[in-house]
């Protein structure tokens, strides 16, 4: 693991797990840690969830539980949480203390389950990795835990030939996760498939259906972990993409790969792709005049690997942008030279240095890139987490809908910036001419 990080943006495993649990309707997390652990996350990642930022139940462990163990405190917390807060599934998430002290968290969850309370636990703690690890591990623990409680419907109903589970687009870790997943569901329905997206209106029911899916599709390596476990335990085949599809070509690539696995009805794929192409072209042909103004713009991208890859490809191929720097923040690796592109870092000092050298006309990143965007006097288009105080509900940068949104936002950011700059220059001319 990398040593010191400046302005760490990826949180810890607890934070990723917490956002994952909160984003599934009907799932109520119970945090077993000191009281501030969950709050820290909310102050950074103010993403919309049914439970508010200070409503998350947690054991708020105190010194005596650190010294004598927090098992009994967790027992009473679980018992009382299910009496106070609604939920169809409760998951205990661990902070660092419980792991260091060695609290028997699985034992406490099992006790509750024996009382017929729908309680499971995550088998990892905060310091086991970043929030991305937390998403992967929590997703697996939720599905497997639901199955262990007998909530899962897979074994009784057999495999559902038209059900596809989607992984790798994580709450709070993909800035537009809800919109992206709903766009995928729309597309899959056109292929006669039903998508289990977990973070949509279906909520916890979709966890129950997951073991019976015909196919698991992942859109990042974080989803790949879950798919791997699902394949081992439930024999569910997997299909992995290392990018989020943006624009027609990427959608086509994805659709053909999926169609090969789920064999939709004859003509469904062709019909769907034809319609998507028409929709894409309809919007894009309206942009020529605007695109001309931004052709060749130098773009620097900062974000998760799958988003940077997908968005970068679209900008380059469809909007004629030159991607001068890509910084991948979700799998920072040590080493790598300055010339590497993409670079991997989650350290804001390194990222800012890369952006300074990129010569970019626009930065596509997170609100954390706002200071450097101001310093370089370039526009910032927010495509990455952490989202900060911004409210994001159904917006998507995935598929054709996402491509249209991205085109709108990208061109508007550049043209608005240019207009502002021209206004500044006009004022400067006036000021200079008045000197004489």
């Amino acid at each position, binding site marked *: *693991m*990398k*040593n*010191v*990080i*400046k*302005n*760490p*943006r990826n*949180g*810890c*495993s607890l*934070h990723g797990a917490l956002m994952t649990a909160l984003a599934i309707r009907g799932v109520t997390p119970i945090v077993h840690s*000191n*009281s*501030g*652990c969950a*709050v*820290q*996350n*909310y*102050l*950074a*990642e103010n993403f919309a969830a*049914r*439970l*508010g*930022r*200070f*409503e*998350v*139940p*947690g054991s*708020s*462990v*105190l*010194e005596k*539980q*650190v010294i004598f163990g927090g098992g009994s405190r967790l027992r*009473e*917390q679980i018992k*009382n*949480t299910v*009496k*106070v*807060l*609604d939920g169809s599934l409760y998951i205990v998430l661990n902070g*660092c*203390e419980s*792991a*260091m002290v060695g609290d028997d968290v699985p034992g406490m969850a099992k006790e509750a389950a024996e009382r017929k309370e729908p309680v499971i636990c995550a088998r990892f703690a*905060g*310091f*086991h*990795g970043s*929030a991305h690890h937390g998403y992967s591990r929590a997703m697996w623990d939720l599905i497997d835990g639901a199955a262990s409680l007998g909530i899962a419907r897979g074994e009784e109903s057999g495999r559902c030939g038209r059900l596809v589970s989607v992984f790798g687009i994580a709450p709070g870790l993909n800035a537009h996760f809800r919109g992206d997943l709903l766009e995928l569901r729309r597309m899959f329905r056109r292929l006669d498939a039903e998508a289990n997206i977990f973070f949509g209106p279906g909520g916890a029911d979709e966890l129950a259906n997951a073991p019976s899916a015909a196919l698991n599709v992942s859109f990042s390596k974080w989803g790949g972990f879950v798919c791997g476990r699902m394949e081992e335990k439930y024999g569910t085949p997997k299909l992995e993409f290392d990018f989020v599809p943006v624009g027609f070509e990427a959608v086509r690539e994805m659709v053909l790969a999926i169609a090969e696995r789920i064999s939709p009805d004859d003509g469904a794929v062709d019909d769907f792709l034809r319609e998507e192409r028409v929709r894409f072209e309809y919007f894009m042909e309206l942009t020529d005049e605007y695109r001309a103004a931004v052709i060749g713009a130098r773009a620097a991208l900062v974000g998760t690997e799958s988003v940077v890859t997908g968005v970068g490809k679209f900008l380059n191929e469809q909007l004629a942008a030159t991607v001068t720097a890509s910084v991948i923040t979700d799998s920072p690796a040590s080493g790598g030279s300055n010339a590497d592109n993409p670079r991997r870092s989650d350290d804001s*000092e390194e990222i800012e240095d890369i952006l300074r050298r990129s010569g970019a006309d626009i930065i596509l990143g997170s609100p954390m890139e706002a*200071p450097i965007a101001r310093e370089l006097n370039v526009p910032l288009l927010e495509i990455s987490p*952490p989202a900060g*105080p911004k409210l994001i509900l159904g917006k998507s940068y995935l598929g054709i809908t996402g491509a249209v949104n991205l085109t709108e936002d990208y061109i508007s950011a550049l043209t608005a910036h240019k207009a502002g700059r021209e206004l500044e220059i006009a004022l400067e001319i006036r000021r200079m001419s008045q000197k004489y």
Partner: protein
Amino acid sequence: MAWIDERAALTRERRSGALSAFHGTLGGLKTLMSGETRQTLRTMTQCAPDDIVYAIRVLAGIEGAAVIIHGSAGCAASALFAPDASNLLYSTNLDEKDSILGGDEKLREAISRAASRGASAVFVLGTPVTAINNDDVNSVISEFEDRTGVKVTYANTDGFKSKTPVTGYDIASHCLLRGLVEHSRSEGSQSGCGCFINLITMSESPSDVLSVLGMFEDLGISVNVLPRYSSADSVKRASRAAASVALNGGECEYLVDGLEESFGVRAIRTDSPIGIEAAERFIRAAAGALGVEQEAERYIAERRGEADEAASKTPLSGYGVFLNMDLEPAASFAALVSELGGKVTGVAVPYVDEFNKRLLDKFHDNATPFIVANGQPFEIANALSKTKSDFCVVPRGIAASVLPFGIVPIEWGHESFFGWDGILAFSSLISRLKNSRGIKPFRGEIYKKTWLSKSGNWHVKTEVR
């Protein structure tokens, strides 16, 4: 002041017997606080800020200061988007291996890196991992200081020793008093000592602080704001001020008293400047310390007209207001509600202790429902379900808990309610929000009906020693 020489501030529970759970009436709480308080525990809790979150909030609010969070990467998240957060926030990013072998090497690296970036001050904050692992942070710091001469200050936070997060403000204040405030007041006296006042702020929003600064500016009083919205220089020169005044005496007590006892900076003990009477008391107290009483009276007379006019319209007549805030502002706010013709239907405060319990006397109706909720929305929801309120003044982040009861939440901090401008702003907001009464939430009730029908102290028990 012996406790300044200690390595860390004591918790509020030990120092002032802070009580963090109570459900009943104002009269009952007054009776309880008149005797020796016994610590309580909750058997059901919701996540709330801890001392780490509060200490980061303060120390990262000092411009140019480097704040090193010695713990896992998640422990540093809270300062990323704070409006006044320093850009020099470092995490030692401890992992499982470090939790076993210790994180000294990473801490050395973090301190060297922070110091090399020209930080105006360097602070190290502890976390549960380092506290449990007993990392010898002080040795690493001493070794670095001896080698480089750069001062590094350790804030001994741990996240689990105190139930009262305001302990984090005390720990941060202790750090500043020991490590950053100029210890030589006499040097300062030669360079203009006594011509300014320290305005101490811990939790107030930028708009709140700005509105109070505006009042001082109108009076021609020079102000040194700290520790939030400040610089290392502001903190250093705090020992040269004529006096210190806090926007929330309870939160700032450690710093205000520390400046008085260690550096002779007079502490002005007054109310939060909310409402007509409290704003006047605040200005008179501050002006008195700087000998500008006459100007203050002229200013008060000038400003009072508008506020009196707003109050004479009694915009809150017939309406009930539930106050969910710290006791210090709540005491002033209760007076404002009354000045505007309304009734306080209930009060929820995070804690009461020896330092602020005198404020309970500022509330007059002993039958008023009063809870000490320590940031527990489920207990506040329980109390709200049993009162008839039209409005609820809440801190940011829990407004959704208020909506199921048909009560209009008023989030505090967006618009300042401090001073005379605050009275006008609050009156105007109330007039606009009257139409929103009965507002329905989109989300269903998250709390079970069985809980709302129980007594609010169902999950509170007395601590057994």
